[in-house]
């Protein structure tokens, strides 16, 4: 975990309102675990004041150039433009500076299993790529990817290139199957009752996924979002209620430090607040 004053390598629009940014990040390739995130200082100065959290989509190397310099490590984020910070991010170009705090959070706990199911809702896909890259080494990996419309379905071919079987569904049927990603999950769980499930997306989707997994006793890990100020566990702004929560024993967990990935059993699902709903995720009814 470190703070880098770094440089943007590229910043491309993927679909309407979705961008992919590659940033120089020495040390990230070995250090970043699937499910971790970074806090990005969008601009020097104090506007906006706080950093913005983004999942690590992937890490990689820029090959050494002809001048014999060593490989350069980079990190990639995928983001949806939703407000002031992401609007500024969208305007950055190759060579611009950003500050990068991370890698932060715990990341996924990788459990060996013959069948691994990833469930992504919209931009919630982000932390699943590095996870998939790891999981494909040990079993069958399926990605169930949902969104409101085709624009919300990102980077699916990249998962396919890893050997992941992908199943796309959209609310309006503009890509893949028409319907909710949780309907697809229900079918898959019926077929693979001993699968492990890993999910990231809007809260209503996560709740539905949790319900399915709970009734079928399937192990589930979810990656949550929350308002964050520090990203390191210092401000207590990003807490969620832990299982067994009560006023006198709140069992709060910091999303930034003890999360963003939680085992479903860790959370007090009935008392999980709606969280921030402009999270860059498509709100779907589930």
């Amino acid at each position, binding site marked *: *975990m*470190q*703070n880098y004053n770094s440089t943007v390598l590229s910043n491309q629009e993927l679909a309407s309102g979705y961008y992919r940014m590659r940033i120089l990040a020495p040390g990230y390739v070995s250090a970043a675990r699937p499910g971790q995130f970074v806090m990005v*200082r969008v601009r020097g100065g*104090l*506007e*906006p*004041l*706080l*950093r913005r959290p983004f999942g690590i989509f992937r890490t990689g190397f820029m090959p050494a150039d002809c001048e014999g310099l060593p490989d350069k490590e980079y990190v990639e984020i995928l983001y949806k433009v939703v407000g002031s910070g992401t609007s500024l991010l969208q305007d950055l170009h190759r060579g611009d500076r950003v*500050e990068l*705090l991370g890698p932060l959070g715990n990341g996924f706990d990788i459990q060996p299993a013959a069948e691994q199911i990833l469930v992504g809702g919209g931009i919630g896909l982000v932390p699943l790529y590095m996870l998939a890259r790891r999981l494909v080494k040990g079993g069958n990996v399926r990605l169930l990817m949902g969104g409101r419309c085709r624009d919300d379905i990102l980077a699916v071919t990249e998962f396919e290139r890893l050997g992941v079987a992908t199943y796309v569904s959209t609310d309006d049927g503009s890509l893949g199957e028409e319907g909710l990603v949780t309907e697809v999950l229900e079918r898959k769980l019926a077929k693979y009752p001993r699968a492990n499930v890993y999910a990231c997306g809007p809260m209503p989707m996560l709740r539905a996924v949790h319900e399915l997994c709970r009734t079928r006793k399937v192990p589930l890990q979810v990656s949550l979002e*929350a*308002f*964050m*100020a*520090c*990203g*390191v*566990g*210092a*401000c*207590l*702004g*990003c*807490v*969620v209620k832990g299982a067994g929560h009560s*006023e*006198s*024993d*709140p069992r*709060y967990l910091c999303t930034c*430090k003890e999360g963003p990935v939680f085992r479903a059993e860790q959370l007090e699902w009935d008392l999980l*607040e709606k*969280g*921030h709903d402009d999270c860059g995720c498509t709100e779907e009814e589930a």
Partner: protein
Amino acid sequence: MNNTSQQKKQRPSLSVEIAGLRLKNPVMPASGTFGYGQEYAPFFDLDELGAIVTKGLSLHPKAGNPTPRIAETTSGMLNAIGLQNVGVEDFIRDKMAFLRQFRAPVIANFFGNTLEEYGEMARRLSDLPEVSAAELNISCPNVKKGGIVFGTDPQAAAEVVSLVRRHLDKPLIVKLTPNVTDITVMARAVEEAGADAICCINTLTGMAVDVHRRKLRLANGTGGLSGPAIRPVAVRMVYQVVQTVKVPVIGVGGITKAEDALEFLVVGARAVQVGTANFVDPLAMPKIVEGLERFCREQGMDDINEVIGSLQST
């Protein structure tokens, strides 16, 4: 070799004294923005700080407020953490060993929900040799008196300060809220009641609205405004308090860089605390320490104490 280059060779002293406590330099975290120290240890050696100030502690663990607890505003942020903390027992059990490694003195920020709790906390903190001083947060509603905030009523404040003073065996810093008509009345009251130092300011009460959903951004409704936005108010209040009391004053509110810290020192603060800026840049504090040293050098001073209270009359 001329004079100036000789001066540059000697490192200026940044050491200051607060109520008998000798600090390596006048820079420390503001309570609640630095956890119990551990969170920022990966970024720099905490012994670079003048002191380590803990998150506010209470007798019993406190759940705090529902989320969302934070919202960003222009050059500031609102927080309504609601003083969530592990409670003094867990603090002793889980955090003390970590803090013991450092030479930097530990200042324990604390509060109570009732007078009795304040007194009991003072006794507990007295038993802890690792805690060099206690910082009393009086911006807490007095449950018994129908929720009036101790920190906005001079009598209530004096009462809690003198109670704590009786039970505490180490320097007592009292932290004032800015949400009052006249901060000097509060400062005088807590000084007379036995404060060894005064820290100001805590956050300004504020609110933000999500106009699209027509909802308040914080689940709690109101929250505390901190960050650069509030610095002019903080500097004014520190100035006023310095003019009013004899005990040393610690300045806090909106400091992000050395020049900001110097505003407080120039008007007479003996030390400063850095809060929200830690979130913006985890290295804010070591950079401020460095900046203070550079400033002394540039101004040809060997001692930061020459800066403190050096305001020229206009």
